[in-house]
């Protein structure tokens, strides 16, 4: 799957590329408006990460360009501006999602996966990890063909882990994914722990493998290795 990262901050785009590389994505980088325009003109991408504040042009114009060419690339705006108005402008211009800086790479990865899922043909909404299967449309999780009873938060958590499988996810990233910006990770530490404990218990009861590993008390990793 091809991803285009349009971002003028080299270190940020490099980090994104490094993180996504392990997940069967092919990443290309455009550091400025001009290169970005050339790339979207010549290639098709499954997802485009677009920083709208570029030094040599308004990133929103790239959205217009895509629309004019009838391209169906999925677009996630990554912006330093986090106001409702910017969000609405971006989404109205045809972006699929809006992610304010700073963000966690795991969050970005989950958003990319969601967009790619949405853009695929119907019947392809299943995410499978060994015996665990998640239907993202009906929001059902089955283990060994048995449906699991999960709360909303547990479902979100499991999906988040599986999309970021093999990666260590910090508690901060989990907190931001589940509750957004308006809460402190420290406030949520106990709650996260409780959710993880319950999720692990339910997976265990469904006779799923023990994939959820704590990493030095700072985060979790979902892996079968």
């Amino acid at each position, binding site marked *: 799957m091809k991803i285009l990262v349009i971002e003028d*901050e080299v*270190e*940020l785009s490099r*980090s*994104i590329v*490094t*993180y996504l590389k392990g997940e069967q994505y092919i990443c290309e980088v455009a550091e400025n408006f001009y290169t970005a325009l050339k790339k979207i003109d010549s290639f098709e991408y499954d997802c485009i990460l677009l920083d709208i504040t570029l030094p040599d042009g308004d990133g929103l114009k790239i959205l217009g360009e895509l629309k004019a060419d009838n391209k169906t690339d999925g677009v996630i705006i990554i912006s*330093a*501006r*986090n*106001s*409702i108005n910017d969000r609405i402008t971006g989404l109205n211009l045809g972006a699929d999602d809006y992610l*304010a*800086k*700073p*963000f*966690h*790479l*795991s969050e970005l990865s989950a958003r990319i996966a969601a967009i790619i899922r949405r853009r695929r043909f119907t019947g392809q909404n299943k995410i499978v990890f060994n015996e665990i299967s998640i239907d993202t449309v009906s929001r059902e999780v089955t283990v060994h063909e048995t449906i699991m009873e999960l709360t909303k*938060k547990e479902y979100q958590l499991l999906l988040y882990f599986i999309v970021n499988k093999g*990666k*260590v996810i*910090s*508690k*901060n*990233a989990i907190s931001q994914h589940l*509750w957004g*910006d*308006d*809460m*402190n*990770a*420290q*406030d*949520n530490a*106990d*709650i996260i722990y*409780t959710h993880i404990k319950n999720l692990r218990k339910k997976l265990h009861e469904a006779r799923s493998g023990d994939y959820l590993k704590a*990493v*030095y*008390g*700072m*985060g979790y990793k979902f892996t079968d290795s």
Partner: protein
Amino acid sequence: MKLQTKYNRATITATIAVLLIASIIYYFFLRYALINQIDEALRVEEVEIYHLIQLHDTLPAESHFRDQRIEFKEVSIPEKRRFISKEVFNPLDNKMENGRQLIFPVHVKRQHYTSIVTKSQSEAEHLLLLILVITTVVILLLLAILFILNRLLLKKMWKPFHSTLSAMNEFNLSNPTPIVFEKSPIDEFNALNAAWTQTTQKINQDYESLKTFADNASHEMQTPVAVINAKLDLLIQDHQITEKSMHHVQAMYHAVDKLTKLNQSLLLITKIEHNQFKEKRTINIRAVLKERLSHLEELIHSKDLKVTTNFKESTVMMHHVLADILVNNLLVNAIRHNIHNGHMIIVTSPHSVKISNSGEGTGLDSTIIFNRFEKSNSSDGMGLGLAIVKQICDLYQFPIQYSFQNGLHSFEVLYR
């Protein structure tokens, strides 16, 4: 004291003093002149009497006219010649009146006489009185005119000053409409207005550039923070990282998280200051409270807080995002500063919302509690939550009150 009053007081006191002293001197001069005139007439009479005696060698007939009487008295020793003022009887008016007498000795046929010539002073006194009355009237008239003139003139002259003053009073940094001063015919006021115009322009410019700076700084900070965040996300993927290093990374995550929240809060404050939340709609506070409470449910649960609610219909006109933030910050505040197994009481009325919580310690200082970066030692927050609440309340001119009673910290927002 008003400048005008002070000025009037000084000028009028001085005028009255000068006129009073001048009047007294005037009176005595006039009186002296008039008496002198009478004395002159008496002296003429004296000469005439001497003349008659010399001519006829006999005393002239006594006379008893109204304004002039001549009398002679036989004496053994001649009296000294002198003028005296004395009350004399006026047979015509049948009353006593002031008179002037010239007493002088005459010698007729070896007999000494005292000649007394009396002239009534009443004419002169009438004249004096008349002059005094006229003078007084003129003085009073002068004072009155001076006073009124001062008043009117000063009032008119100070008018531009007062309009400048009221324009300055209406000056508001967050609502930078340029101040328009009236053109005045007085140079001093024009200079004052020019100085003020320049000052306010400078203030507005400085404030504007400060706001833009804060806004830009906050935005520019997001990208480096995003880089740090991304690098930390990559760092924890490293298999070789030790547990000790992980603790450092954890601390860095918290710091970055704080920095992000701080930045977001500052941006929000700037936006409120920029008046970027103009749109208003009717907000059902009860619904907002319920929605935020369900969002915070797990947090409340993790502290085992008992939540008591008494929700009455409560609506307010404001921006929906600000309503969310207002309610959320008050709730988070009540949860974060609560004790384990504590309680929260939320009461809404048609015109207010009150959130109370149990907590450690005694009452807080309500004068500083809403200040930016003001927080208790135990607080893990940034101390901006309540500052934002206050900012939102100020924007809509909602009074917000803090009180501490029966171990409960309460925040109440009133709206119309």
